[in-house]
Structures are given as C-alpha cells and as structure tokens.
C-alpha cells in the first residue's frame, strides 16, 4: 500500500540516523524506541542493504543483523551525509503540536503534566521552525469539567471507589451510585468508563452529567474486562436492541448526524426516514418532543403515542 511505503521510508530515514551513533544496537530496543514490532524492524533491515547513494558506485548501506544486534559497517564513510537528524515535515510538526496543545488545555489535567507539555511544545515550535506555522490551521478543544476530572483522575491513580450523583437524560433523573473507575477518556466530551455497582455492569459516564462526586476510601476492585474499543464511535447499539423509526423533514436531518443509525432513506420532501436501534426506546421520547414539526416517530406506535401524550399534558398547563 502506498501509504505504508511512505511511512516505511520515513521510518527507515530515521533508522539510519539512529543506527549511526549506536553500533551493535539491540533489535528489541530499537523496535521499542520506534514503536514497531521486531518483525517490522527486521523487514526494514532487509530493505536497507539495497539502499545507498548510488548502486552503481557500490555505495550501498552495509547494515546487517544477526537477529539480535544491528551493525552498520560503513557508517563512517556513508553516515556523515545520509544519516543526519532530519527536520520535521509540516504534517509531522502539526500532528505533534496540535495534539500537545489540545491535551494541555484539558481542565483538570495534572499541573506537572500540563507544564511538561507546554515546555515540550515550546521546544518543538523552535525546532520545527517555519513548519510549525501549519499547525495553526488545526485546533482541537476537549470539553471537561475540571473538578470532576481531577477527582476521577485521582481515583484511578489511587485505585479508589467513587460515589456519583449522575444525570440520565433518557429518564430525566439523577441517580446515586458507587462506581469503580477503569479509565478516563476524551472524545469531544470527557468520559469515565467504570464498573457500576448499582447496575452491576460496565457503564460509561459523561463527566458533564456528573452532578456531584465524592472520592471514597474503599478500594476500587473492578472485574478485569477488555476496555471498550472506541475506534468505531461511542454508541454501538447491540443487534438485539429494539428498532425505532423516525421520519424527519429537511429541518430534522441533523438527527442522522447525532444518532448512530442502521439506515437513512431519502424522502421526496428532502427529509429522511431513519431507522435506529436503542436499548431504551423510551429515551427517544425527548427526541420526538424536540423535533416538533420537523419530524416524528413512526414506530413503535406506543413510543409515538407517549410523545403525543406528553405534549398534550404539557399543553394543558397553558390552558389548551
């Protein structure tokens, strides 16, 4: 794949710089330093002897390995020109600088980490020179509740249980529960994944919905579970969850952006028929109310009726 060839070239260029000053470097250590597997490193090492400043003049890199250690035999003659540390590309500087700035602004981050990140950012900006400029074209803000964040962070570090008063939008209610935090992650909003003793299951809590938090003295002892894979998005409905159908007009198309769905069929008026699954269909009553004339739930009928019923009851308070 083309993208891999570029990554591999990038890596091999750094590899020769790295190997020049470290004769007899250990395969294991080099692989770890480069964040790759030993096999990937060996395949790079198989390519490098085919590379040089000219295959005609015989100026090829004499890099070899016995599987444990790596030697560059002609580093003296070839290395001075070809193995100098290379400047950062615009994308490389951008990737590091934007990430460091985004993380450094997280409210609740430990001050020592924030300081270290800011110092690293300043050094990188200097080293990247004019290529640091491109990083101004991207920015990322994480949302977080500083105080809650700091408590969850501390609970995880000290392996302590937490008490939460937590808001559930599906039921519009606050519940109190004790949880053993497992991990703290940020994808737009900041969340804590925890073992919840109230539901006796793994739950993900959004920090801005935590109304109150207390660090308990009890030791957190969550069962060993695989962390959730976040790459596919946070909400991953199960195949067995009940199906809900929502029909929206043009003004309700945003529903398809906010709710993971199985299908969104175009309607002739510029609207959509969206089919989605949720473990708690009642939680979509709020959506039906919010949509107003921009859309309605068509299935299941009981859910559609409960939204209409709620609207009628609300209207009664206005004398209608």
């Amino acid at each position: 794949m083309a993208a891999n060839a570029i990554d591999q070239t990038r890596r091999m260029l750094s590899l020769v710089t790295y190997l020049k000053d470290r004769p007899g470097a250990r395969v294991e250590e080099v692989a770890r330093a480069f964040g790759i597997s030993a096999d990937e490193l060996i395949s790079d090492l198989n390519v490098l002897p085919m590379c040089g400043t000219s295959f005609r003049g015989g100026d090829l890199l004499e890099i070899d390995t016995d599987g444990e250690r790596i030697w560059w035999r002609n580093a003296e003659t070839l290395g001075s020109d070809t193995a100098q540390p290379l400047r950062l590309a615009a994308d490389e500087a951008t990737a590091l600088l934007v990430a460091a700035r985004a993380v450094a602004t997280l409210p609740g981050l430990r001050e020592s980490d924030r300081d270290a990140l800011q110092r690293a950012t300043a050094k990188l900006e200097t080293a990247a020179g004019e290529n640091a400029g491109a990083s101004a074209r991207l920015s990322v803000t994480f949302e977080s509740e500083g105080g809650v964040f700091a408590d969850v962070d501390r609970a995880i570090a000290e392996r302590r249980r937490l008490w939460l008063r937590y808001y559930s939008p599906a039921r519009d209610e606050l519940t109190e529960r004790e949880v053993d935090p497992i991990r703290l992650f940020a994808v737009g909003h900041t969340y804590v994944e925890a073992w919840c003793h109230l539901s006796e299951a793994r739950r993900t809590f959004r920090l801005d919905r935590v109304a109150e938090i207390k660090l308990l003295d009890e030791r957190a002892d969550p069962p060993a579970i695989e962390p959730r894979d976040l790459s596919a998005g946070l909400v991953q409905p199960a195949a067995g969850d009940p199906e809900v159908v929502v029909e929206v007009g043009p003004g309700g198309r945003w529903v398809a952006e906010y709710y993971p769905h199985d299908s969104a069929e175009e309607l002739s008026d510029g609207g959509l028929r969206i089919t989605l699954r949720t473990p708690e269909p009642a939680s979509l009553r709020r959506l039906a109310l919010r949509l107003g004339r921009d859309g309605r739930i068509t299935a299941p009928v009981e859910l559609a009726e409960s939204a209409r019923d709620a609207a009628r009851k609300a209207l009664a308070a206005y004398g209608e």
Partner: protein
Amino acid sequence: MAIAKAERLMNLALCLLGARRPLTKRELRQSIEAYVEAFGQGEHEESFNRMFERDKDDLRELGLVIDTVENLDGEVAYVARRDSNRLPPITLDAAEATALGLAARVWQQARLASAASGALQKLHAAGGMPGVTVPEQRTEGRLSTLEPHIPAREAAFEPLMLACRDRRLVVFEYRKSNAARSERRQVEPWTLECWRGHWYLAGWDRDRKAERVFRLSRITSAVRSRAGAFTAPVPDQVTVRETVERWAGESATATARIKLRSGAGYPLRARALSVCERGDGWDELEIPYGHGLDAWLVEFGPDVVVLGPDELRADVVDRLRAVAQG
C-alpha cells in the same frame, strides 16, 4: 518482482542527501536501480518523468527540502542541502518526552497518526528523547490517567487539512442542517477546528462573499481543491467556536422564567441563574434565553411551563401543538 516503492524512495532520498553537488534527472535515473529496472536506460521517458515527479512529492511530504537548480550546462538538477534538511538541536527531558509521546497518540486519523509517530521517530533518532520509547498503539500509558482521542472519521477531513495547509481553494457540495438539497460551495479554507468531537471548517465563501463555518459531516460530495494557492489574507483569529455555539443556542441574549417540576430537569437547574422553591411541587427558575431554547424546553414535556417572555411561551406552545397532532 518490481522493486518496492519504499526502497525506491529511500534510494532517491539517500542519493539527494548524499550528493556533493546537484544531480540531474538523468544521473538520478541511472543511479537508482528501481528506475533502471522499470524503465531501462533511455526509453519510457514520460512514464519515468511521472514517477520521478511523484516520488519527489512524496519525499517533500516527509519533510525533505529538495532544491531545484540549474547546473553549469544549463540542465535542471536536484539537491537536498544538508543545512536546510537538518533538525535543529532539541532535547526533551524525561517528563516532556513522556508527555509528548502520550499526547501524540490522540490521533485516530491515519495520516496524522502516522505523522505523529514519524515525528517522534525523528526526535528519537536525533537523540532528543533520552530513555523514552515511542508508545505503541494500545499500550498502557499515564498522562494523568486520561486517554484523549481526536476522531476524524469525516471523509472531507484529509483533503481539507491539506487545502488549509497549502492555501488552496476548495469546492464541495454542502447541505445546511435544515436544507433539503446540497449546494455547491467555493471556499478559501482557513482553519479546521474540532469541538465536542465534530470537525468544522472556517473560511471565506467566495459566492456569498462572507466568512462561513461548515460542519464537515454536512459535506455531501468529494472535496476538490484547485491548483495554485489563493493569495487573500487569512485572519489570525477565526471564531469557529463562537459560531458553533450560536448554532447550538449557547450564546444567550436574554433571560427567561420557567416553572420546573421539583426534582426534574437537572441540566436546566445546572444552568439556572436563580432557582426558587414554590412549595407546590414546582420550582421557579431564571435561565439564559438564546436561540434554540424553545426546542430544548419542549424536551422536558409536562415538567416545564414557560412563564415568560411571551415570545418564548408562544414558540413552546407552537412546538407542543405540532407534536400533539403528529
């Protein structure tokens, strides 16, 4: 088997870096086995030229500065000067290197994830990160205990990122949130900003002759970028976030009074300017009133009653009627 692309690119890079003088295209072609093998000595001029241009572009993407000069015989020649390609000295202490290594893992977008690890590898090779390793995906790390992720699943992200970087005019189809159809937009892209997990583009809309913010998930076509950089100035401060907050109804312009059932509507309470118990099972709240408040209040159904202003009350009643009749 044809010689792999990585080997070809590596050879081109080493030739350009190792040369004592600028090398002509002909010299490079003869020095690199992959070119000889693919195109022979003098034939297939055009295919060779295309590959050579692409390869140079790829190396430039990796950060290599390749200068084009004319040699004494008036021929075009290429050189990667050592001084313009050298990383200035940089040394991070252990805390800085660890923090940076962990922050670098936030990217879930392939191109930026690769760029981030490539950058760390360069810093490593330069001896700038003593005692710290480039973290592998999914290994344990500690930056506080946080794992931040920056998603970028939108197909438009990468072309727009490159267009912002290279200041290229872009053209795409865009459907506004409440529009039935997409419209073609011509935009001078300024910046991309991620807020609450969604990406937005700010730029100058050429047809509307105004600054506009676009949500990437509403781009309905491929993003095409025009050759040649635009020259209009890009403002230093771009207010993506303020615009999006306004869309989200988060910039209040007035206050509203509502009645809220005791115990219900925690998010409304969290934002309230004042809460006062009435003693009849209801509380009275004063809350910020901006665009979108009517839709939000309706979500709480019979647990909210608007007391004022009248305009908000009418909007809420209107929405409730629509739902009741739905």
